[in-house]
Every structure is written in structure tokens, then in C-alpha cells.
């Protein structure tokens, strides 16, 4: 789970982490044990605290199995109990990776790679340069590792599925190109369709052309990872996970070629 991965980074800055759901203590205990989670998972049965924080989802009616879910939100709270920052995204299909919170709050340079853990896959995205100059091209690679039984999609795809993609934002990148390996064409009998899929471990490679207007100094390259996890039986909702990678932009020497 992604929060476990970021936990040490937060603790180095004196910040502890905790998760809260409406599940019973038993469910949380089982989940934490299965995922080897080292942080507290708080049982808010009845969604009392969820409601106190103002994020109870009113669209799910009472009596429904999902009643009491929150709009997923992360609160960064100071030691005085005052909310310092909130992380949420309007469409709620996009989750803010806690690694992004780490970089956002602390400029935690770490390595020039970021790892994103979703339910059944882990993606490590790395840029090949620690520093560069404006207008330069740098390499990117994304290593995907899927849990057994789960796959994500390549292209071309029918429109009701979400293909896997990584896209960096225009404030840092003038152009970009990613190359994904050839997906495997797999027949899904229950759907009556043959679809291009990725499973197990694979790597995508790409190149980014840094914007020529970037000023010297530290810069956070922002991007979004999009994918949809499916097994043979079920599809999860398509996800968009925002991430950031730090890079240092050097001043250009007067005679340096572009």
C-alpha cells in the first residue's frame, strides 16, 4: 500500500501517518496484517469522525452497504491540531499519491524516481538525469509490476476501457513520447472480446523535451499515470494518479549548444 511506502519519508520530517475508514477493527486488523502496514488504521464505525470532518458522502443512501463512505481526502494536520493542507481532487477518480504530498511539502529529492503503489500494481517512474538545462531532452522509464491475475490495457482499445498512459504536464515539458512494449492479445470469453493487455513485469520508455523557458533551480516535473486494472472476473475503476519528479535546471553556459 502506497502510504506504507511513503511513511518513512514523512517520519523523517516528524510527521506521522494514520488511515481512517468506517470498517470494523477486525477488518482493519486483517487488512493491515495482510498488507504488512506499520501505521495506525482507525475504525470509524458509524462514520462519526468522517461526518465531523465534513466529508461524508451523502449520495449513498442509508441501508446501502456503502453508506457512510467519505469523499477520499487526506488532511495534513499540524501538531497544534490545525489543518495545514488538504489533498483531494474534484473528480475523485484521481488519487493524490502520498509520494506527491511528500515532494510537495518537503521537496524530498530522494532519488530521481517515484514509486506509485496501486491495489495490484506498482509503478516506478524514473528520469535519467538528476539535472539538465532548459530545452534539453531527457529519458524517462516506467517499470510496471502487476500482481498475478491482474492486467492493464494497451492500445488500441474499445472506448469503454482505459489504456495505460503516462503524461507529463505542459508547464515543464514541451513535448514527450512514450514507447510501451507490444501488448499481448488475450481473448476474454466472458466478454466475448479480444483485448491488448499487459501483465507481470514490463517497462515503458520515453523521452521528455524540457520546456525552453524553464528557469535555473529546482523544478518539479508533474505527470499523471492512467490505467485500469482488470482480472478475468472484474474491472476496477480507471485510475489517474498524479506524481512528481524533481529535477534541477542548470543555468546555460553562454557558449553551450542547445
Amino acid at each position, binding site marked *: 500500500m502506497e502510504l506504507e511506502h511513503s511513511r518513512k519519508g514523512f517520519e523523517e520530517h516528524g510527521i506521522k501517518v494514520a488511515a481512517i475508514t468506517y470498517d470494523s477493527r477486525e477488518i482493519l486488523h486483517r487488512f493491515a496484517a495482510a498488507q504488512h502496514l506499520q501505521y495506525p488504521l482507525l475504525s470509524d464505525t458509524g462514520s462519526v*469522525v468522517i461526518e465531523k470532518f465534513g466529508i461524508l458522502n451523502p449520495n449513498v443512501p442509508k441501508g446501502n452497504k456503502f453508506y457512510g463512505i467519505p469523499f477520499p481526502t487526506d488532511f495534513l494536520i499540524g501538531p497544534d491540531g490545525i489543518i495545514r493542507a488538504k489533498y483531494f481532487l474534484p473528480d475523485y477518480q484521481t488519487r493524490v499519491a502520498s509520494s506527491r504530498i511528500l515532494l510537495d511539502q518537503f521537496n524530498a529529492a530522494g532519488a530521481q524516481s517515484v514509486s506509485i503503489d496501486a491495489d495490484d500494481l506498482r509503478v516506478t517512474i524514473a528520469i535519467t538525469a538528476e539535472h539538465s538545462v532548459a530545452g534539453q531532452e531527457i529519458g524517462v522509464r516506467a517499470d510496471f509490476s502487476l500482481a498475478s491475475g491482474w492486467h492493464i490495457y494497451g492500445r488500441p482499445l474499445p472506448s469503454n476501457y482505459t489504456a495505460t498512459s503516462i503524461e507529463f504536464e505542459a508547464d515543464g515539458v514541451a513535448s514527450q513520447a512514450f514507447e510501451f512494449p507490444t501488448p499481448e492479445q488475450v481473448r476474454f470469453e466472458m466478454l466475448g472480446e479480444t483485448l491488448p493487455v499487459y501483465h507481470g513485469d514490463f517497462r515503458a520508455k520515453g523521452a521528455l523535451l524540457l520546456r525552453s523557458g524553464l528557469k535555473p533551480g529546482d523544478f518539479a516535473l508533474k505527470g499523471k499515470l492512467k490505467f485500469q486494472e482488470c482480472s478475468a472476473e472484474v474491472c476496477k475503476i480507471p485510475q489517474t494518479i498524479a506524481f512528481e519528479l524533481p529535477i534541477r535546471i542548470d543555468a546555460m553556459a553562454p557558449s553551450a549548444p542547445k
Partner: protein
Amino acid sequence: MSDASSASAKIIEDVVGRLFSGQKVTPQEFGAFVNAQNDGATSGLAVGAKIPDFALLDQHDEQRSFRDLSGREGLLLVFSRSADW
């Protein structure tokens, strides 16, 4: 309940019922289900507000409150939908 939110509630009822009885849900239906959940999404207490007191059991059956959860520089409190699904 407004028309929009009762329509959302219907979609949620229908899809939840089918998911938990092992029936198939198409990706379009699941997309509509997600949108129905997101209807009128709000982010709650404002930045700068003081959090309310709380005391909840954690997975080890221990009572936790903000004071013992918080580190020297504070706490990241992550509200998730469920660990069970």
C-alpha cells in the same frame, strides 16, 4: 432529496447490489457508479480550521486520539473508503 441525488442513489443501490451478489457490472455502469458517488463532492473542513476531538480504536484494539497519533510536526490523516473492497 433532489432529483440529481436520488438518481445518484438509485445508480449506487443498483450497482452495489449487483457487485455484492457476484453479478457482472460493465465498465460503463461502473463509471456511472463512480460519478454517482462523486456527485456534489466536498472536501470538508477548511485549511486553517482546528480538527475536532476524536477517539477511535485502531487495528490493535487501542484507543487513539490526535495527541498520541501526531508526530513532532503533525499528522497526515488519510480518509479512505474501505479496506474491505
